[in-house]
């Protein structure tokens, strides 16, 4: 893997930053001041769900407990996303400074990075970086010489389970259990890791924090749209000349994204990975933003040569394998949807049955216990609706998408 940090350019995360500066500024502010700036910035969670960070942190800060935790969600498993891998390798100072500031703000003494098992190769460089921070008194006991400001970070490696990206499943996994989502409420901000108040934040979200602390919420709001403030790191892959991560302001259109990544003859773009939606050419003027096309940043480009049914099959096979099996709509539903794709492939379907499967997909969206089953039917529904002409005149062809 190539380290391209020196070539990256962006307004926020990829802008200049001196390691430790965010922490040094934060300790001159009160916890309330930091919460105010984050609220003012309107920063929303970058993992995909888009929950306001200030609300999460205020609840965690207000919770009364002698033990609190900050968890960095680095269980980046969504097909097509690799931004967290890049951030962990190239910008660990932002991730960890963000966690230390979070610890200071909500009153946690311990941070845990949940690193997906597939990224174990990043463990050594990250641990070396943490040690460097301890040596510089940016981590550990009495940070920057401030009495009672103790915060340390541990890295926990997962063992491969997509569902652990869901925050309550992640906490179960940290506790040594199967990664099955919990019933909510209670939410982790009150009853999290070891039943203590816990704030779970995405890697990219934490990377925004030092910049907001240094420059203020008002500055952050200058980028993006009214509802979607700041920038987003997009992971672009598939049929394009320059697959990579790009930091762009929210509100960027799909068309612009395709130009930047050097995509040609594009037929469709999958927004938000396998659990997102597939957007056809006619809609490439749409904006990437919470109010139009929300995304955790996975952008997969398909050119005219791709077979959308094979794409859909790849997604559904993924979900059948990754459903944790806890709740029925997700466990059985994904199997039924995959069966439907296989029926189309063999030409053994009826439209009446396919319509029933779309209904089933909509049922899964409301009846599944966690985000996995709630979002897995998205591709099934959007691909069948947007590419029906292609799919239903489909002749059995090659072996890959």
């Amino acid at each position, binding site marked *: *893997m190539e380290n391209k940090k020196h070539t990256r350019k962006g307004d926020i995360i990829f802008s200049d930053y001196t390691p430790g500066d965010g922490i040094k500024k934060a300790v001159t502010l009160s916890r309330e001041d930091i919460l105010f700036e984050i609220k003012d910035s309107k920063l929303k969670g970058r993992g995909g769900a888009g929950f306001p960070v200030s609300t999460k942190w205020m609840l965690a800060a207000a919770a009364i407990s002698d033990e609190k935790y900050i968890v960095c969600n680095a269980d980046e498993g969504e097909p097509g996303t690799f931004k967290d*891998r890049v951030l962990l390798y190239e910008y660990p100072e932002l991730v960890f400074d963000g966690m230390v500031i979070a610890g200071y703000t909500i009153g946690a003494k311990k941070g845990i990075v949940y690193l997906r098992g597939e990224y174990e*190769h990043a463990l050594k460089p990250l641990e070396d970086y943490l040690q460097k921070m301890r040596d510089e008194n940016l981590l550990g006991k009495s940070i920057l010489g401030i009495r009672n400001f103790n915060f340390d970070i541990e890295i926990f490696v997962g063992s*491969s389970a997509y569902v652990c990206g869901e925050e309550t499943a992640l906490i179960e996994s940290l506790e040594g259990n199967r990664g099955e989502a919990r019933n909510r409420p209670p939410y982790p901000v009150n009853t999290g890791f070891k039943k203590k108040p816990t704030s779970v934040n995405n890697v990219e979200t934490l990377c925004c924090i030092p910049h907001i602390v240094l420059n203020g919420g008002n500055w952050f709001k200058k980028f993006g749209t009214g509802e979607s403030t700041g920038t987003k790191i997009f992971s672009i892959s598939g049929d394009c000349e320059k697959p990579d991560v790009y930091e762009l302001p929210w509100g960027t259109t799909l068309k612009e994204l395709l130009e930047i990544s050097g995509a040609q003859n594009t037929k469709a773009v999958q927004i938000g990975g396998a659990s997102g939606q597939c957007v056809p050419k006619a809609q490439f003027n749409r904006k990437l933003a919470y109010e139009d096309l929300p995304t955790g940043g996975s952008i997969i480009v398909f050119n005219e040569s791709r077979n959308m049914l094979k794409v859909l099959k790849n997604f559904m096979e993924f979900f059948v*394998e990754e459903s944790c099996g806890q709740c029925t709509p997700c466990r059985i539903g994904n199997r039924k949807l995959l069966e439907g794709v296989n029926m189309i492939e063999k030409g053994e379907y009826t439209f009446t049955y396919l319509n029933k499967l779309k209904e089933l997909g909509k049922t899964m969206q409301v009846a599944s216990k966690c985000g996995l089953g709630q979002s897995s039917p998205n591709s099934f529904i959007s691909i069948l609706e947007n590419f029906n002409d292609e799919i239903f005149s489909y002749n059995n062809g090659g072996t890959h998408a």
Partner: protein
Amino acid sequence: MLVSEKTSLTEEIELLVQKYGNDRSSLLKILQDVQKNHRYISEFAQQEIARLLKIHPVEVYSVVSFYAFLNSKPKGRNIVRICRTITCDMKNKEAIAKAVERELGIKMGETTKDKKFTIEYANCLGLCDEGPAMAINERVYTKLTPEKAVEYLNSVK
């Protein structure tokens, strides 16, 4: 399993419990270390972990069976995982898989007779910008061609 093997496994697990603590939250770390050392977690190992953490052996089994990187059946000394998710699929992961299968004379999901390799598919390895990708144990290899994939395989002892 020989009695001497069992004794040494018990000692190994006791040391791991000492290192990580006997709290339930240490379970995954202990399992990961046993998996790394033996490439699988035997029933005996699961029972010993359960005994030392004071939980039911089925609790341990429930965790082992849940995670893709933990195995209760013996595997090869080196686990080769080829990414099969969409972007690598579009970059023709199939050709990589076929080349590896031919070279080792086994199919995906199988282990070579000398127990040197197990080959399997993995879901998204997060290397979509550099696909097709594969991992051999913890190391990852990107921008593969069928020939390069086999070369990396042969470089493993």
